[in-house]
């Protein structure tokens, strides 16, 4: 776990935060709607990347 926390995987969080803030803020003009877009896109991106990570992890474990 500590290895994961210090690994390059951690760069995903600031990058997802930046991408969702900018993407969310370009979707609307009203702060409440912007916040909703930010949260929605952050969750969407993390789930999407998480699924890819799990698939690659399984493939890496499965393929010798």
């Amino acid at each position: 776990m500590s290895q994961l926390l210090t690994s390059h995987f951690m760069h995903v969080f600031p990058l997802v935060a930046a991408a969702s803030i900018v993407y969310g803020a370009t979707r609307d003009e009203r702060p409440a709607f912007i916040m909703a877009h930010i949260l929605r896109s952050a969750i969407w991106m993390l789930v999407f990347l998480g699924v890819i990570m799990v698939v690659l992890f399984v493939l890496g474990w499965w393929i010798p």
Partner: protein
Amino acid sequence: MVFYESPKGSVKVELGNRYLAALYAWLLPGAGHFYQRRYTKGLLFSLTILTTYFVGFWLGDGRVVYASWKTNDVRWQFVVQCFVGAPTFPAIIQAVNAKENVAPLWIRNYRYPASDPGGKPGTPAFSRVTDPKELTRLANRKIPDGFMAAPFGPVTTTDPDVLSAWHAELGHNFDIATLYTFIAGLLNLLVIYDAFAGPGMFFEGSEEDEDQDKDES
């Protein structure tokens, strides 16, 4: 004066001269929104994109944003990075300089040439010269590393060169820093669009937005 109006008419934004706003947005992230007096969004964009860009710049020791179209080093990532605007201009100046075969400006450090690796066993090729005596001894044979300049000299796929020395020094950070600065450029494309055409409220009136409307009221 150009205005943006959302499909349901709930949002109206004064875009001013949208071409000028887009130009400002490219020159400095968020500046287009400041020009349109959309200060909160301008500040949000400015802080987010410039932080992403400069964190990448710092992780890559200032070496990952450079323009180069040399054989074996076509830096296509720069095409996207340069959407961050003014912070990438030194790289363009350095590229123009390199095309005219002039030594890079703003030299940060020097490296040993391939023909003179420093004389110490185990010293990697093209390592940095730190000893002032060595700098004097090498005279004009030393290789300059300019600020935001492309790696000096030819880049090969078989022998060590300046680019491979950068990779050896930075390790994974070279690619991660490239990713940060690349994403900053991509995000500023969205911001330029927002300054030019207003927010992309293509789905206003969708179920999600109506739910949000109910929550608001």
